[in-house]
């Protein structure tokens, strides 16, 4: 017998209802929802500032109202990190929804301990220098100390404990993405915490599952000619059939759109991976270079031979802060002499940048080099040139002043130039800066709270 893990969310806003055909068809034994990209906690922070009872994903409400009743009836546990910055609040919300639906004997588990924002001084006082993994700068040396979010990536351990205590739904904040999927496997098979090869197999399964559509033909260069647009609208999300020894078959919800084959698995295997022999997670370091893939046909790929190494001593901690604001304007310049007119426009704009504390400016040509920059060749004498100008400042009012000054030049600028009205009307966009660092795992304590309905 295999244990079957379904994946129904790969980012905040994903189609979580894709869990329903998995659950109603009884194709899964547990379903996981991974909602937190690097930036997502910053979005949730804004929600929480407006309303302290929020700070979790809105998807949790859909999961609780539409999916939980079906899953609970069939004893299929649900696991999600969509609790974001407020897992307790999310748990209370799920409780209220469950009570409204008349569910009884439901056990909600809420995991906390990832949020380190109030502990930054304490961690440093305990000898943790919190050095930026990319720049080498210690946290204390940063001039801008306005940290809005600081969450450590937890591993599978507290989720396993919650599941072993009979949780029907587990809600967490930041947990390393693949560990959400590893947890129900450990809970089911009782894998030892130092059985590195099995843990690493579970991590590879989780890694392949965690981006939902990306392993069933979504965002795929390999499948461009194999998949039709109308099928991409409603893909069947992936499921892993995992054996007790860790080997597994990656497949998808039966009778749904999408493709699972060797190439979709290869594409996802290396997604967001640095050294494939050392894929670092809180629970194990997985080695992707020992595995082999076998296409069993009918949307099934078998993955065997994953190996693992002992877990790292430190956990990753990501901090976010506000670093200023940006604004974007889009101009379209027509023939003749579009390049000459662009140079005139740019010089005119530079006078505005110099009159204000504008920090960064970029100019790109949509349709020519906005994606590929110097890889792209620009045309000699274009009929149209669409210029995207982006500029930043510390203060959003400076950006508003800059736009007003630029508009003053409307009748003095180059001939044959149009500006996109929607870009004039935009609000400045906050620039969020990430500070990735490491923290000793013995300084982090997790807590499980059970809420009974």
């Amino acid at each position, binding site marked *: 017998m295999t244990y079957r893990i379904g994946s129904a969310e790969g980012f905040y806003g994903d189609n979580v209802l894709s869990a329903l055909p998995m659950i109603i068809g009884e194709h899964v034994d547990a379903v996981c929802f991974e909602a937190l990209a*690097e*930036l997502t906690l*910053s979005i949730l922070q804004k929600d929480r500032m407006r309303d302290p009872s929020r700070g979790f994903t809105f998807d949790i409400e859909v999961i609780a109202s539409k999916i939980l009743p079906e899953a609970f009836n069939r004893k299929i546990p649900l696991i999600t990190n969509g609790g974001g910055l407020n897992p307790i609040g999310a748990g209370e919300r799920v409780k209220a929804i469950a009570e409204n639906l008349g569910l009884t004997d439901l056990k909600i588990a809420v995991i906390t301990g990832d949020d380190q924002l109030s502990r930054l001084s304490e961690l440093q006082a305990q000898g943790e220098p919190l050095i930026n993994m*990319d720049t080498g700068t210690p946290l204390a040396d940063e001039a801008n100390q306005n940290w809005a979010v600081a969450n450590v990536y937890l591993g599978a351990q507290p989720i396993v404990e919650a599941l072993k205590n009979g949780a029907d739904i587990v809600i967490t904040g930041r947990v390393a993405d693949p560990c959400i999927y590893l947890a129900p496997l450990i809970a089911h098979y009782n894998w030892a915490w130092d059985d590195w090869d099995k843990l690493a197999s579970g991590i590879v399964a989780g890694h392949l599952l965690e981006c939902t559509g*990306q392993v069933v033909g979504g*965002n*795929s*260069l*390999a499948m461009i000619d194999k998949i039709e647009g109308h099928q991409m609208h409603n893909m069947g999300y992936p499921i892993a059939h995992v054996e007790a020894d860790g080997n597994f078959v990656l497949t998808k919800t039966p009778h749904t759109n999408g493709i699972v084959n060797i*190439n979709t698995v*290869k*594409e*996802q*295997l*290396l*997604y*967001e*991976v*640095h*050294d*494939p*022999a050392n894929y670092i997670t809180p629970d194990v370091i997985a080695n*992707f*270079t*020992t*595995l*082999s*893939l076998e296409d069993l046909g009918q949307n099934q790929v078998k993955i065997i031979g994953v190996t693992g190494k002992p877990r790292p001593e430190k956990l990753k901690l990501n901090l*976010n802060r506000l*670093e200023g604001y*940006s604004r974007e304007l889009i101009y379209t310049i027509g023939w003749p002499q579009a390049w000459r007119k662009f140079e005139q426009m740019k010089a005119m704009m530079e006078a505005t940048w110099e009159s204000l504390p504008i920090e*960064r400016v*970029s100019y*790109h040509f*949509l349709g020519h080099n*906005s*994606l*590929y*920059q*110097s*890889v792209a060749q620009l045309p000699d004498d274009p009929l149209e040139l669409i210029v*995207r100008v*982006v500029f*930043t400042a510390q203060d959003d009012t400076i950006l508003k002043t800059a736009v007003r000054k630029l508009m003053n030049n409307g009748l003095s600028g180059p001939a044959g130039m149009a500006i996109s009205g929607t870009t004039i009307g935009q609000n400045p966009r906050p*620039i*969020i*800066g*990430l500070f*990735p660092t490491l923290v000793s795992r013995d300084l982090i304590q997790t807590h499980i709270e059970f809420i009974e309905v």
Partner: protein
Amino acid sequence: MTRRLYDIAFGREGDKGNIANISVIARSSEAYQDIKANLTAERVKSHLGDLVQGEVIRYEVDNIEALNFVCHDALDGGGTRSLRIDGLGKSLAGALLYMEW
């Protein structure tokens, strides 16, 4: 018709902060021998030009006949800071596979 890397390989990009990885997955075993021998980190860095300001590190993944390029300072500060229209670098595999081959 210009022959491009895309004709013998496909791939996907991913972002972590200001670092992008680009996988290049061979369409055949012969293609893998070809890219393993000729698609060096230096060549990738030179082709990507302005897109990658930092170092490019190459990993060979023989078991799936793929190369993985880790490109530092490749996202104009990363998805949250980047002024690019594609701050997450979702088009970087396309940019690399456009290489004449």
